[in-house]
């Protein structure tokens, strides 16, 4: 019998945070240090999850879940692997130009699924690398951590990724070169641009960030002013590393806001959308929200209550323009803890109380859809996704102690990148 309701807020959050962190240990490869994308059998590594893992080891050390030596050893293992793995334009390399393929074989580190050399996932990886390089400031093997972290960051050729254009593509493949998909509209790519702009070796041209900003949409949506982006995770990912409170780029100076406040508005919109529940999905309310990227029921269609229901598999869902198929990410509400603690806790407690099945072994599933009925009271994603677990660990820690934000405030590339993007004020 789950006893979440009996726990204090702090005890509940600590328990969920520790369980989320345990994913990163349980699904790490003992030889390479790479971490699996999901808990499913045969899952490859996601380099973004490795970035989250590297960011979470210091959290575990600070919380006493790992000894410092253990945290450093795990960190060093993966940094050594990344440093020594093949970087070339061969189709089965681990990466190219300092970037990494999105998905890698857990044992060999080779590219799988003909996936793309991913700019954003490399950025999330490198953000984790920089956390490691900043946190482990001691001697002995921690020296090597710092050296490798610095080398890995310096090796990334962000300028190459600009491909002679102003904006950035979403990736590159040896089979076809840069993908046509670019970054249009505000999203999770702020961390990508900041890291690229802070590079001492192959920096992005500042015009890239300006060009991206031209695609931003400042909207009044459901009664709230917001720099629009539909999926909730896009308002969270960069914030896992960067404390945006009080620092502003040109866009936010123009709007007299900042990206932290913007995420608060986004949360308010998600809650309002949940309450309005325009497509009559089961369970949606002000305490049942969190439409974002994540696993889904797969492509099925049913007729229900006189209307066709179309469901999707893993995809990026958003509010209020959609797509929305009634699937929420159970972890998402709690991940907004630093922004709207009351809403995050109220929603999470309500979810755990009503649908305890979304949290198995104290870890949240990637997706849950109560509209699509099944014997368990709704469709539930199998197992766990590393991205969800890593983000949750970081956001909870930022809320409780501000540890990652504090580490990254001292990180030279982050500071330089923010300044080069035009951020100023506050702690910067």
């Amino acid at each position, binding site marked *: 019998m789950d006893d979440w309701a009996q726990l204090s807020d702090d005890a509940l959050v600590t328990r969920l945070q520790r369980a989320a962190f345990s994913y990163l240990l349980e699904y790490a490869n003992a030889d390479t240090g790479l971490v699996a994308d999901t808990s499913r059998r045969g899952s490859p590594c996601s380099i973004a999850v490795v970035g989250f893992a590297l960011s979470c080891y210091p959290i575990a050390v600070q919380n006493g879940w790992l000894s410092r030596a253990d945290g450093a050893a795990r960190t060093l293992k993966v940094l050594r692997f990344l440093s020594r793995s093949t970087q070339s334009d061969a189709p089965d390399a681990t990466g190219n130009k300092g970037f990494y393929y999105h998905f890698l074989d857990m044992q060999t580190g080779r590219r799988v699924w003909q996936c*793309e050399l991913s700019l954003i996932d490399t950025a999330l990886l490198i953000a984790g690398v920089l956390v490691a390089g900043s946190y482990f400031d001691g001697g002995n093997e921690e020296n090597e951590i710092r050296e490798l972290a610095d080398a890995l960051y310096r090796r990334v050729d962000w300028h190459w990724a600009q491909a002679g254009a102003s904006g950035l593509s979403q990736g590159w493949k040896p*089979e076809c070169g840069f993908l046509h998909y670019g970054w249009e509209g505000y999203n999770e790519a702020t961390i990508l641009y900041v890291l690229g702009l802070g590079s001492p070796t192959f920096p992005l041209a500042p015009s890239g960030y300006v060009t991206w900003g031209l695609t931003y949409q400042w909207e*009044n949506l459901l009664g709230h002013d917001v720099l629009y982006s539909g999926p909730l995770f896009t308002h969270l990912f960069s914030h896992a590393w960067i404390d945006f409170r009080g620092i502003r780029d040109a866009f936010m100076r123009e709007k007299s806001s900042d990206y932290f406040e913007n995420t608060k508005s986004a949360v308010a919109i998600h809650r309002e959308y949940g309450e309005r529940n325009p497509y009559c999905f089961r369970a949606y309310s002000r305490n049942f929200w969190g439409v974002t990227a994540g696993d889904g029921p797969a492509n099925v269609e049913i007729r229900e209550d006189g209307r066709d229901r179309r469901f999707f598999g893993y995809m990026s869902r958003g509010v209020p323009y959609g797509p929305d198929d009634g699937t929420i990410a159970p972890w998402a509400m709690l991940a907004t803890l630093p922004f709207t603690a009351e809403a995050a806790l109220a929603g999470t407690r309500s979810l755990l109380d009503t649908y305890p099945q979304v949290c198995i072994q104290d870890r949240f599933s990637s997706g849950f859809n109560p509209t699509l009925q099944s014997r368990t009271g709704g469709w539930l994603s199998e197992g766990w996704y590393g991205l969800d677990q890593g983000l949750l660990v970081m956001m909870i820690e930022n809320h409780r102690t501000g540890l990652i934000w504090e580490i990254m405030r001292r990180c030279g590339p982050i500071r330089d990148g923010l300044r080069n993007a035009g951020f100023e004020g506050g702690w910067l």
Partner: protein
Amino acid sequence: MPNAAVEDEKTFLRRVRPQHWKSPVPRSSYDLLIVGGGPAGLAAAESAARLGFSVALVERNRLGGNSLNVGSVPSKALIRTAHVCSTIRGAEDFGALAPGEVALDFSKVMARVRRILTRISAYNSVDDLTTLGVDIFFGDARFESTDALVVGSTRLRFEKALIATGARPKTPDIPGLEQTGYRTSATIFEMETPPKRLAVIGGGPLGCELAQAFCRLGAHVTIVQDEPKFLPREERDAAEILSRSMARDGVEIRLNTAVVGARREGGDKILETVDSGVKNDVHADEIVLCVGRAANVEGLDLEIAGVSFEAVQGIKVDDFLCSSNPRVYAAGDVCGELKFTNAAQTSARIAVRNALVDARQRYDDTLTPWCTFCDPEIAHIGLHVWEARRQSIPIKSFTVMMHDVDRAITEGEDTGFVKIHTAEGTDRILGATIVASRASELINEMAVIMNAGIGMEALAEMVHTYPAQSEAIMLAAQAYRYSTSSRFNAR
């Protein structure tokens, strides 16, 4: 062909291209000589004739241009039938039980299309124009000098000329496509039976309209677009809503996919595609090309007339629609970026005034609304957000989702939004984007509002019928008011 259809066809031809047309004896010179009898040419002819000028019009094919013959009119007629099919299939959502599967009699569909063409051709017929005093010449026009052209053996002199020859479907250079065979928007309506499988190349407005319509008519449709989204001119959210709507209809969508070749195998027409390095084939019975339009400038001997032009973009004109020859103006698709019927007609009327009465009126298409007639429809007027931001204009959008509009909910047409873009800190409206089942109608309210210079404050006060989908426009203005008042209160 049934008798009624034969009569329709005869009436239609009598109006747009009489079989035994006898050209009038030309005047020594015309105040205005118009080349092209599409929407721009017809609007110009009527406008100039009503102003009392002598007018000649040269048309090489049929009056009405693409719009009437192979464009807006037939496609909207077909889309209507497709919509009916879709409504019947979804009737159960409203508690109305349809008797079974929707069966289609394509010959009746096309007969209805022809009937509609015939009806609409009455409004700009040969008779109408001749009654207004316009001299009509059918044939290919070719400039002979800077103030004269020939049609067949007839020489026509002019004080001013207006080139309104329109545009035609572009045909990309795809290896094997010519041999494989394809249709364009100009030939798709010649089909006598609907294809079981249709491949559409191009995800612009026309490609999306045809893809969705034929899918709803029962074809298996695959649409191949080389960009990552449909409707590159539109907002991402609007394009994505349309993409999901088409997918719901059953259209097979291949975005970010280039067509690199075509071939025939047995009865199949096959498109060879590449998406991020991955090769695929698309099998179809028919292929339709919808990759944009190229201006009709060939064969006119524009060099002799001293008129500068480019092969695809067409005739170069100044803000007043005058070409490099001060006697010669241009209007419509042959020179305009917005290749829409309403833009053609508007530009033509302005060109006429500038050419004949020295009006010196600039042509500005900023306040020309346009619409993609899919379901939902996507309409726009004025500046896009990215255009404003590129011009360093602080911009803020006020959005009302159609699922928050009572009438849209009652109608079961709650997909989409009304988005009004304002100059931030003011109530000045810079543009609007509407995605709704009747966006083509709603956008016209925005056109009136913007042309009248009405701001969000006044718009918030305008009482709308209730319930009506246009209420969304008022609600967006009220959101502006709440936004400004709450800011005021916060201070």
